[in-house]
């Protein structure tokens, strides 16, 4: 089984999810077997204002371990990430980062703020 460990800067309790990527999709938003798909499909909330279609940055996650298990970011994801607050070298969009290895071990951190350009601090 693959595993995702997720921690939240907002202080919500950390979660660890075990899953088989071959059973994706786990729900209806984002790429099948993406970080967003796995989290939502296992009862873990992650903002995804555009419905998981790579049209915003609200599902921004920072990968702290296991980046090699994730699909390579394409240009549209990179363009979106360019405008994400708190961007790091290991930032990804949860809706686009796909896990295919059934033995993957991935750790991600969910930043406190997502982007809302009017207020500067969306939620």
């Amino acid at each position, binding site marked *: 089984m693959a595993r995702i460990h997720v921690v939240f800067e907002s202080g919500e309790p950390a979660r660890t999810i075990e899953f088989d990527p071959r059973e994706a999709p786990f729900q209806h938003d984002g790429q099948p077997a993406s970080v967003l798909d796995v989290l939502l499909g296992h009862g873990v909330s992650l903002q995804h204002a555009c*419905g998981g*279609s790579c*049209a915003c940055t*609200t599902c921004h996650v920072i990968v702290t371990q296991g980046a090699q298990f994730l699909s390579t970011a394409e240009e549209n994801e990179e363009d979106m990430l360019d405008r994400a607050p708190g961007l790091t070298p290991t930032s990804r969009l949860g809706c686009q980062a796909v896990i295919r290895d059934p033995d993957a071990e991935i750790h991600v951190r969910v930043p406190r703020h997502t982007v*809302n*350009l*009017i207020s500067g601090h969306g939620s």
Partner: protein
Amino acid sequence: MAVEHSARLEGVVEYGPATRALILRLATPLAFLPGQFISCLLPVGDVVLTRPYSIASDPDSPDRLEVVIDLVPNGPGSAHLFSLVPGDTIRYTGPWGTFTLEDAPRTEAVFIADGTGIAPIRPMIHRALATAVRPVTLLYGHQGGTPLLFADELTVLRPNYTPVVVPSAALLDETKHRYVTADAERERHFYVCGVGPIVYALRDLLRGAGYARHAVRYEKW
């Protein structure tokens, strides 16, 4: 998670059997930038679908939004929205999105919209014309048999503004002709919106021709 708001469907503008605009009266005014979208929470069956809709109206009407929707074949979200009648309530979060224009760029600005991709472009053009010091152009791809949205307003030549309507199938070639092969100028800024692979094709054409990555902004539906 994001704060949810509610809006009342105040009116519907039919643009054809598969395209309409919804006029939304918001319970609380919404501050947003031209180009942003709201994220509608649509109860469909046992689930709540999250669907983004670009705001086609201007920020100076913060309690009355206009969004454009296409009826997507087998699309439960758009089918739900098409079933709504004036007086119904819609829940949403937002505004969201980074495909925005606060002020016109210091260079020539070129907006490229394909079909209903004109929705976020409309308020962006309004803002650009209010602040522009260089020419503003709209390349507007028209799909045969479909309505040309906001034609009365956006396809009229004005000082500093040149609208060009071309068949959608010719949008890529027209862009190449005007902005790649016609001259060596590479300082323009582009804002592209549409449905499907044409958006990436335009992006790749322009960046591949030497325009800076940050100067080619786009939103693909």
